[in-house]
């Protein structure tokens, strides 16, 4: 049972880390700011989500695990907003204002 | 009795909080009402010291050090607290006209009165604290009071002066904090009493004390780290300048004294106190000569502060007992603190006088001071008396301090410091003589139309302070301070005493004629060179190098101490 849980954790966290890497690769390779913004906000969010998912079974209690979910939800809200704000700012800049 | 220690911090701070909460016209009323109370507390502590055996201790929250924080009062605290209370009360009286309680709340009055109370609380914390970290917090309190005071007028140049001051003072605080941390890490306590029992001459102590001392020197504006002082002190409103020059810089000086004399008296070695004394000597000579070269009265007074701060640091080499290898908190230290008290009262009065002259003439250009004796006779008189008090006639605190210094130089065989003291006296006389000459000159223009009217209370407040400074030497110090019996106050009317007053004046006159700014004459090459050096030292790069260089010199001096 414990091994199964550990394997789940390892797999989920590895997947999460892979998304973080993909995000950074995107940041390096994508040609312009808007596309880089995609890489930044999407891949990293998914990465964090998977890491939280992997850590859930390692938490002491159910509520302890839910706290991690709360963290993830807040990051989601933040990056949803920031993505739009930065995209708008970029569009303004594109128009030369 | 001991609870008075707490009250001396709490009363001004509570006053500041209350004034802020109530606001409006009540701000100045609350501040003024706090003053007699604070003065009474300070006097009561000073009076209660001797019966209590020379020191009072209060354990905050009932927690004893090293875990808890203690307040301690001894003669140093009492001397500085009474001085502070007197100066603040006088400034309060003086400032009523400049910062009136109008029907509607105004920015300047609101800020000034609250800051005045806060500076009092902060200084009392400095004087009473027995804990290195509490020192840090109170140092920061002083910064947060002093900087808004500098910027109170809101002109671009005072804003800049305030920003320079803030950044440099913050640097000083952080260096001090770093040293505090290292001492805690090495000895597990921040309490001065406990620490002095544990501290040893290790490299970590040398590094910590170096950082702390240099940080505090930057805050005290000890030469050559004075880049912020002239503009800041000269740019503030008169009452604020008086606070800054008389009191705020003394706070950080006091902490250096606590650190060197009470935390590590046996670890100072020979070289480090000499270095501090040398910086003091440099301040005296450099600051005074530059005061001679100023065109504005307030700047002259500010440079005079740079010079006068130098005297305080002569206490370090002169207090060193070479045989015992430790700093003795005896007559040399007393001299340093009495000098601080005399300077506080005289300099506050001097800034007040400069402020009144500015109001009366509509400017403070030294070249155009002619006729001030008629336009603002009282202000001119106060200025003259304050200058005399700084030179030190036989009844004054400065004279008393100088006598103690000279005796200490004699008994420790360090003749060169007596030379510095004499030179300092001559230079101080020189700029006073120059000012008197200007003031007595006939007015070269019709009475200026911009002139304002000086309120009646203001000269009274300033005069009271000057008299304090002039008569400080007559106080029965022996009854109160741990002075060796051999030291006696000299007879103020003896021929020796008179001569010691007259000869610096005579030499000063000659020097004033030589060095001062004269119309239609080419300045001396040395004067120009001085001004260039001053200009460089007031820039960040040179000040930065001085700071780093001093850190390394002091560090080496302390590390090499056996």
């Amino acid at each position: 049972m414990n091994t199964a849980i550990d394997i789940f954790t390892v797999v989920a966290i590895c997947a999460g880390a892979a998304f973080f890497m993909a995000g950074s690769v995107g940041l390096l390779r994508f040609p312009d700011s808007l596309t880089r913004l995609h890489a930044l906000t999407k891949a990293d969010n998914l990465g964090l989500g998977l890491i939280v998912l992997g850590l859930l079974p390692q938490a002491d209690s159910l509520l302890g695990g839910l706290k991690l979910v709360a963290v993830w939800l807040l990051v989601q809200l933040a990056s949803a907003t920031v993505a739009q704000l930065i995209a708008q700012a970029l569009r303004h800049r594109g128009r030369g204002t | 009795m001991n609870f008075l220690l707490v009250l001396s911090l709490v009363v001004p701070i509570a006053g500041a909080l209350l004034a802020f909460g109530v606001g409006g016209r009540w701000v100045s009323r609350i501040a003024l009402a706090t003053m007699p109370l604070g003065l009474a507390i300070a006097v009561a502590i000073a009076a209660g010291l001797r019966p209590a055996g020379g020191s009072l201790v209060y354990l905050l929250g009932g927690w004893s050090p090293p875990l808890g924080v203690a307040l301690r009062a001894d003669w140093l605290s009492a001397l500085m607290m009474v001085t502070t209370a007197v100066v603040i009360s006088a400034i309060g009286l003086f400032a009523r006209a400049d910062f009136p309680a109008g029907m509607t709340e105004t920015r300047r009055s609101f800020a000034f009165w609250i800051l005045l109370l806060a500076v009092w609380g902060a200084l009392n914390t400095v004087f009473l604290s027995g804990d290195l970290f509490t020192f840090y917090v109170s140092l920061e309190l002083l910064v947060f009071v002093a900087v808004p005071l500098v910027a109170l007028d809101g002109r671009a140049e005072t804003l800049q002066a305030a920003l320079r001051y803030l950044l440099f003072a913050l640097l000083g605080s952080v260096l001090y904090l770093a040293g505090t941390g290292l001492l805690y890490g090495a000895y597990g306590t921040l309490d001065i009493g406990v620490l002095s029992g544990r501290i040893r001459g290790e490299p970590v102590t040398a590094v910590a004390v170096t950082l702390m001392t240099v940080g505090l020197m930057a805050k005290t504006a000890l030469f050559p780290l004075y880049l912020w002082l002239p503009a800041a002190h000269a740019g503030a409103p008169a009452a604020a300048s008086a606070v800054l020059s008389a009191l705020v810089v003394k706070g950080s000086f006091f902490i250096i004294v606590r650190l060197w004399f009470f935390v590590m008296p046996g670890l100072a070695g020979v070289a480090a106190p000499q270095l501090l004394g040398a910086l003091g000597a440099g301040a005296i000579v450099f600051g005074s000569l530059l005061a001679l070269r100023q065109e504005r009265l307030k700047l002259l007074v500010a440079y005079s502060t740079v010079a006068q701060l130098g005297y305080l640091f002569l206490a370090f080499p002169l207090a060193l007992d070479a045989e015992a290898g430790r700093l003795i908190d005896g007559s040399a230290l007393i001299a340093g603190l009495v000098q601080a008290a005399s300077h506080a009262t005289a300099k506050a009065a001097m800034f007040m006088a400069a402020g009144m002259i500015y109001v009366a003439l509509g400017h403070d250009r030294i070249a155009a001071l002619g006729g001030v004796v008629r336009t603002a006779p009282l202000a001119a008189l106060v200025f003259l008396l304050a200058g005399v008090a700084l030179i030190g006639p036989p009844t004054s605190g400065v004279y008393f301090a100088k006598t103690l210094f000279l005796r200490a130089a004699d008994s420790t065989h360090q003749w060169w410091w007596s030379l510095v003291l004499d030179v300092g006296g001559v230079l101080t006389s020189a700029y006073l003589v120059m000012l008197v000459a200007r003031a007595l000159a006939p007015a070269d223009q019709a009475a200026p139309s911009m002139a304002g009217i000086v309120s009646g209370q203001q000269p009274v407040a300033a005069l009271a302070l000057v008299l304090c400074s002039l008569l400080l030497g007559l106080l029965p110090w022996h009854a109160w301070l741990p002075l060796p019996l051999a030291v006696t106050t000299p007879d103020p009317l003896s021929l020796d005493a008179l001569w010691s007053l007259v000869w610096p004046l005579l030499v000063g006159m000659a020097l004033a004629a030589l060095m001062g700014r004269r119309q239609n004459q080419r300045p001396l090459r040395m004067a120009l060179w001085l001004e260039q050096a001053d200009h460089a030292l007031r820039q960040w790069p040179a000040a930065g190098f001085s700071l780093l260089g001093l850190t390394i010199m002091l560090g080496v001096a302390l590390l090499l101490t056996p």
Partner: protein
Amino acid sequence: MSTSSDSRAGPPVRVAVGRAALFLAFWLMSAGYQPADLPVGLLAAAAATWASLRLLPPTATRLRLSSLIMFSLHFFRQSVISGIEVARIACDPRLPLRAGFVVYRCRLRSAGERGVFCALSSLLPGTLPTGTNEDGDLLIHCLDVTRPVVASLTEEETLFTRVLRHD
């Protein structure tokens, strides 16, 4: 801020209770459950509800729970799929980017609903709302304009509209 809520007779109690329950749940999530702490949790929920009602005055919109679950499932599935998509593009040696803007005519009219929808679609990989154009249509930036972006957005909007119920 008070003006907008003053015009109403008072916030509907149901909304307040619903939000308070949500905030209490969040308290339990972040603080854990300890009976002694519960009064503080209730206080926190009350304070949060007060702030929430001032910042976001209740509207007549209600949520349908069953549709919300449906939508969430769709949303998570979609975000994983498109997350992989972004990752694939980033790591593909040929970098198959065909980035560009797509104009999307949003049927949601209320500002709040639109905000939620924009936030959700900005979380979905591949699409990024960058504001509105002169006609009030959403300008969506896409990593790959050749994909059926508008169609999938329409589907999401439909699912999203089902969650909302207007009284």
